[in-house]
């Protein structure tokens, strides 16, 4: 790690300039992936740009229209302490709070989880199901990118040189809407998802599902927005037939590898199971019965 430069810019402009001035620079948020990679010699950045002093990068805000803005470098623990965010987006919060230990929660961020670009990132399926958008800043200014468009493959993103994710925006939502995230790991804590599933539902006044979004993690090179799985349960109640359609559509969307955490067949089967279970939780939350 010789010749490393550490910069802690205090504005977006300074941060963009710092990133652009050092090719091979990496953005430092909570460091729970980056510093591990640096210490193992897997990442050898010329510079680390600590963005936590950039206004907007850390914090949770609710806008007048009800939309939530989460700074991309906000520690997961702070996200979990935000009562209004937890009440409105319990699936996003539970996904963020599943990452690592209490200590890791004190540092790990949504921006880091997304841009580390692991297919098994826990918060990403929940954010994709929530239809969250990233505010990306860079040399060409500011642009909004749907979360599912950021991962390009394991360890790779679609961000341009000099760009970084400043914040996440969760859309305003009304009554009778909720979300849930479930992951499978073979132990109870401190592990990487074999499969993750995020489900986000909105119900009409008559209780029928009017909008459904399903996202799956660790079953493809990037987090999947399984549009057909969401479409499979729109228009009715979440009965056994709807759950069977959801299961089949979620399995059909999968394209997993086999590795030490699970075979391709197992992951595909589990994706359907988790999608069903997460949908039931989101449905009960949206109906206010949980």
């Amino acid at each position, binding site marked *: 790690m010789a010749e490393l430069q*550490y910069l802690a810019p205090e504005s977006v402009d300074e941060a963009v300039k710092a990133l652009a001035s050092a090719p091979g620079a990496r953005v*430092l948020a909570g460091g729970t992936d980056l*510093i591990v990679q640096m210490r193992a010699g897997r990442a050898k950045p010329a510079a680390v740009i600590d963005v936590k002093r950039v206004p907007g990068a850390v914090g949770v805000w609710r806008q007048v229209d009800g939309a939530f803005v989460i700074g991309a470098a906000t520690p997961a623990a702070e996200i979990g302490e935000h009562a209004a965010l937890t009440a409105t987006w319990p699936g996003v919060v539970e996904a963020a709070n599943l990452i690592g*230990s*209490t*200590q890791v929660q004190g540092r790990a961020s949504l921006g880091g989880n997304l841009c580390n670009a692991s297919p098994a990132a826990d918060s990403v399926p929940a954010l994709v199901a929530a239809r969250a958008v990233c505010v990306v800043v860079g040399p060409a200014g500011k642009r909004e990118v749907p979360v599912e468009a950021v991962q390009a493959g394991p360890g790779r993103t679609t961000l341009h040189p000099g760009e970084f994710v400043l914040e996440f925006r969760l859309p305003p939502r009304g009554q009778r809407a909720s979300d849930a995230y479930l992951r499978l790991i073979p132990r109870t*804590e401190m592990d990487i998802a074999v499969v993750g599933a995020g489900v986000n539902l909105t119900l009409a006044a008559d209780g029928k599902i009017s909008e459904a979004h399903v996202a799956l993690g660790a079953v493809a090179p990037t987090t999947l927005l399984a549009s057909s799985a969401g479409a499979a349960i729109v228009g009715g109640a979440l009965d056994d037939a709807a759950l069977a359609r959801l299961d089949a559509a979620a399995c059909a969307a999968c394209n997993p590898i086999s590795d030490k955490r699970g075979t391709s067949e197992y992951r595909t089967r589990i994706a359907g199971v988790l999608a069903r279970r997460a949908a039931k939780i989101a449905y009960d939350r949206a109906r206010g019965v949980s």
Partner: protein
Amino acid sequence: MSKIHVTTTVNGDSAEFLTDPQTTLLDALRDELGLTGSKEGCGSGDCGACSVMVDGRLVCSCLMLAAEAQGRRIETIEGMAHGGELHPLQQKFLEHAALQCGFCTPGLLVAAKALLESNPDPSEEETRYWLAGNLCRCTGYDKVIRAVLDAAAVLRQERRAA
């Protein structure tokens, strides 16, 4: 390579040191400030032996650069006892024999103190989940959990008496 000058607060006292950009907070605490209570177990955020508080939040000091500590408030195991008077958690760890080799103990104590500050009456399950990132290869954890729950009761009693 130029060193970075860092000014911070450690256990209530202002502290400053010079650091290389890649040096972790753990190494700066141990090597620059002589605070060797925080340990390096894994160096990858899995074991919790390096646990410290930064601006009131529990973190692994091995996964934080020393340069990031500029202007932050750091609390380490060295700040836990007051003079010769042990913190109730430390006292209960002794009474319950909640340690053998002791390498994980500073991290467990710092993490357990953070738990009891946010949740004065945790259940056994909450305590076990909170401490899931603190590995101990000696005790099997039961004595640790008993010590933390016992210390929580003492602290609640002290609070009522105060």
